[in-house]
């Protein structure tokens, strides 16, 4: 504690020194020397307090001490230790009360001082730490300052360098520019030089050429010639024409004609383009007018600012509509009008759209509540309607899908056919051949039909002849009979009737009943032939020539059989008919093997024949 006081509080110690000095100097107290000695000895106060106090007042100098203290105290503003003397000469009495009060006061002061001292000390501590902190801060900042200063210097240095570089670069650029300029100048000069040289060289060259020309061309070079066997006619068949002024004029004419045609063509194109553009413009304008006119009333009512343009436009519209026909004339004023009106309309449209945008944004801001409430019923109705529609549409779609599926099925079958046809080139060949055969068959069929007709005619004729013969015979018999007997007349009549009847029945049998009888016969006869043919063709390579041969055999056979009038003759005819079927069956066969088509067709015809034959 004492150390602290001496070291850190020089002010306080100096004050006490002052006090001591003051006291010693002014009062010259008896113990002042001593006191000074004591002070000088710098013995810690606290330790020597008792000795000090004991040293201050002794038995001998009580009076002096008291007076000294009194003096001291009075100088400090305490009441005197002595009682108030009534008279001057009287010895002043020590006032105990005052002494005690003083003592108390002093003690209080002492305590206060101590307290204050403590406070000051803590404050001092605080201040010291603050000071420390500030000092460290200061050091740091100083460091920072130093570094930043250094940095700044560095930056400045860099800046300077960069500036230097920049200057250099500028210089370089300038140099380069100069260089470029120089080079360009050089190029230009070189170019002119080159051109000049070229010209000179060319002139020389031309001279040489001229000379060469003279040497080569003017000398009668016999080798320069054309040998041709005979001259050919011109491609256009005309003779060559002489070059005359007339032909020149004609050429000119033609040239201008060509040019004119080209220009006309281009003009036409441009006109067409223009017309189309005009059309588009007109349409646009009309649409704009129609779009804007119904809505124009609202803005007029709503906002005053748009009325001006709206009204003016309404006034203009009918006039311009009537003027539309003028647009076909492409004169400038009309064009201007058109563009102006379009521009105006466009502006209106733009403002309108902007307004709409604003409204929309406003609506968004305000919310939808009002409108929602108003249109709820409508909404419900609408949704109901829409649902109904959806159902209807769904049904429609279903039916359509069904139809489509059916269609697709059909299409796929068809497609298969066609694809198979396309895929298999042999089929096409086959088809071609079958077609030929089909036509052959058809012809034969026709022939057969003819023959059949002739045959039936012959049969009819035969029948008639037979009838005539029968009648003749009858008449002859009758005559004979009449000649022989006259009674047997009735009997003979019966006989004749009977015979006539029987004859007619025979004929009926021939014509009518022959068919049913023929058929089974033909079938039993025809189908084995076919199968035999089939078996013949199966092991061999399935070629249509085979088929043709058989066919021709059949046809021959049939031609013979026509003469014989056998029922077989109709068979090939039928086979022909089957062939047509066969052809179709081939066409509709989806996947046929390469070589087997003829066999397949054959089998199919067979089956057909059999089926036909059975009933």
């Amino acid at each position, binding site marked *: 504690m004492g150390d602290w006081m001496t070291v850190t509080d020089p002010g306080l110690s100096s004050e006490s020194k002052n006090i001591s000095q003051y006291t010693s100097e002014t009062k010259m107290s008896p113990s002042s020397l001593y006191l000074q000695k004591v002070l000088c000895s710098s013995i810690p106060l606290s330790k020597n307090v008792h000795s000090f106090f004991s040293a201050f007042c002794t038995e001998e100098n009580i009076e002096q001490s008291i007076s000294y203290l009194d003096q001291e105290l009075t100088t400090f503003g305490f009441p005197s230790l002595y009682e108030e003397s009534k008279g001057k000469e009287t010895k002043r009495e020590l006032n105990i009360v005052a002494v005690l009060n003083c003592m108390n006061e002093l003690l209080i002061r002492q305590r206060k001082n101590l307290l204050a001292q403590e406070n000051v000390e803590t404050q001092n501590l605080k201040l010291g730490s603050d000071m420390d902190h500030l000092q460290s801060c200061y050091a740091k900042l100083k460091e920072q300052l130093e570094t930043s200063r250094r940095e700044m210097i560095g930056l400045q240095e860099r800046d300077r360098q960069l500036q230097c570089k920049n200057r250099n670069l500028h210089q370089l650029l300038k140099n380069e520019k100069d260089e470029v300029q120089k080079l360009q100048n050089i190029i230009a000069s070189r170019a002119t030089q080159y051109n000049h040289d070229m010209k000179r060289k060319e002139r020389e060259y*031309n001279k040489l050429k001229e000379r060469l020309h003279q040497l080569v061309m003017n000398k009668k070079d016999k080798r320069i010639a054309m040998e041709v*066997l005979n001259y*050919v006619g*011109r491609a256009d068949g005309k003779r*060559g024409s002489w070059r005359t002024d007339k*032909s020149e004029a004609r050429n000119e004419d033609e040239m201008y004609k*060509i040019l004119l045609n*080209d220009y006309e063509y281009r003009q036409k194109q441009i006109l067409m383009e223009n017309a189309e553009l005009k059309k588009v413009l007109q349409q646009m304008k009309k649409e704009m007018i129609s779009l804007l006119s119904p809505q124009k009333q609202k803005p007029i009512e709503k906002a005053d600012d748009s009325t001006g343009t709206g009204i003016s436009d309404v006034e203009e519209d009918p006039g311009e509509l009537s003027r539309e026909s003028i647009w076909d004339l492409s004169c400038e004023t009309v064009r201007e009008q058109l563009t102006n009106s379009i521009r105006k309309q466009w502006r209106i449209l733009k403002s309108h759209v902007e307004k709409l945008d604003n409204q929309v944004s406003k609506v968004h801001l305000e919310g939808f509540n009002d409108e929602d409430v108003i249109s709820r019923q409508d909404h419900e109705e609408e949704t109901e309607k829409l649902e109904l529609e959806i159902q209807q549409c769904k049904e429609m779609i279903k039916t359509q899908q069904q139809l489509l599926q059916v269609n697709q099925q059909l299409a796929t079958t068809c497609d298969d056919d066609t694809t198979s046809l396309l895929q298999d080139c042999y089929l096409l060949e086959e088809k071609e051949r079958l077609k030929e055969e089909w036509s052959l068959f058809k012809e034969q069929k026709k022939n057969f039909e003819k023959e059949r007709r002739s045959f039936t005619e012959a049969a009819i004729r035969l029948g008639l002849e037979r009838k005539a013969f029968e009648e003749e015979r009858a008449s002859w018999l009758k005559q004979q009979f009449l000649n022989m007997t006259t009674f047997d007349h009735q009997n003979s009549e019966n006989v004749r009737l009977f015979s006539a009847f029987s004859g007619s029945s025979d004929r009926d049998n021939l014509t009518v009943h022959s068919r049913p009888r023929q058929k089974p016969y033909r079938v039993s006869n025809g189908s084995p032939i076919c199968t035999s043919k089939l078996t013949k063709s199966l092991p061999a390579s399935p070629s249509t020539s085979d088929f043709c041969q058989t066919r021709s055999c059949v046809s021959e056979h049939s031609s013979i059989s026509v003469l014989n009038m056998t029922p077989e003759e109709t068979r090939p005819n039928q086979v022909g008919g089957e062939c047509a079927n066969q052809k179709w069956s081939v066409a509709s066969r989806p996947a046929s093997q390469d070589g087997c088509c003829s066999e397949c067709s054959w089998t199919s015809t067979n089956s057909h024949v059999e089926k036909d034959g059975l009933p």
Partner: protein
Amino acid sequence: MNFSEVFKLTSQLCKFSPDGKYLASCAQYRLVVREVRSLQVLQLFTCLDQVQHLEWSADSLFILCAMYKRGLVQVWSLEQPEWHCRIDEGSAGLVASCWSPDGRHILNTTEFHLRITVWSLCTKSVSYIKYPKACQQGISFSRDGRYLALAERRDCKDYVSIFVCSDWQLLRHFDTDTQDLAGIEWAPNGCVLAVWDTCLEYKVLLYSLDGRQLAAYCAYEWSLGVKSVAWSPSSQFLAVGSYDGKVRILNHVTWKMLTEFAHPAAISDPRVVVYKEAEKSPRGALGRPACPSFRAAESKYEIAAVPVSLQTLKPAADRANPKIGVGLLAFSPDSYFLATRNDNVPNAVWVWDMQKLRLFVVLEQLGPVRSFQWDPQRPRLAICSGGSKVYLWSPAGCVSVQVPGEGDFQVLSLCWHVTGASLALLSKDHFCLCFLETEDEADGAIGQLGAHT
């Protein structure tokens, strides 16, 4: 797709007749005319020397065989095999020979471009045209065969003369605003003549038939300029390919640029389809030794995912004719597509959609593209790249076809038949025909087969 057998050929001289019935080919000094359908030899003509140039007359009646080394032209008639014609240019020499569109005149250019001689097969008359210019494309006949435009050079200035082909009368003669004219070409409608300057300067001039200058177009200065020019069959567009690797499309109304097609090596547009040719991986080690030369290099196309970077070639800057810029240009017959080749991306063919004016398809081959040609009837592009394959592209897709046969058949060039039904593939010393089946012809072929069996 069927291939014919392989026939002999020299210097790639093989041409279909304009009517599509015949095929003429030269094997050294022999000229063989075959029927296209059966490929049977119809006529065999023997020329005096190895033929260097072969050309059909427009009416398919005559064939011209030029032997430049000897300054000779021989003409053969298909109708009369005994008929012959021989034109000798003598000491003047011969560097080019061609038919006039009427098929009755032959235009011979002498050495050093001293003059052009017009020989007539109808009369004895011979006409001379002086001062023809030696340039890339100095002669151009209009599509209808009525006019001939000829580039001339007199007194260090370029001129264009327009002749009427029917009587070789000079119709117009005008000077062109060019430094060194490089080429001329008629628009298909025969009314506009495109003239372009030498590669040192970007300049395209357009002249009307009557000699008026309609427009001049210059895209940039101080750099190599026009490399190739092509008219669209509709005469609506003029495509100009230049050394900066761009194609500029001029329109026929204002003759200003409509759009420019750059050919970047990296394609990032997701709308563009990139077909990449890829070697087909061999199916198995066992199957290969049987026929290694034939099956070894089969290829197919794969569709590459879009950010694609194409293989580029670094051109040698110190050499003349650097391999940069758009060197090949061709419009499809319906003008809907434009095929291009950028010479420093030699493996790629770019197909542009002319309706939408944007890149449509890029084909990247394994080898550098030698040539390509459009089918005259359909939007179908045939490409060859010097390998043993021919490539076909159509909007539906593309296919790579191996040319069958022993040995390697290196397709160097190709030409279409007029109907687009077949394609002649030319290698260094052989050729073969490739028959393409179409739906309607497939049936006919089957019919024919049926008839034969």
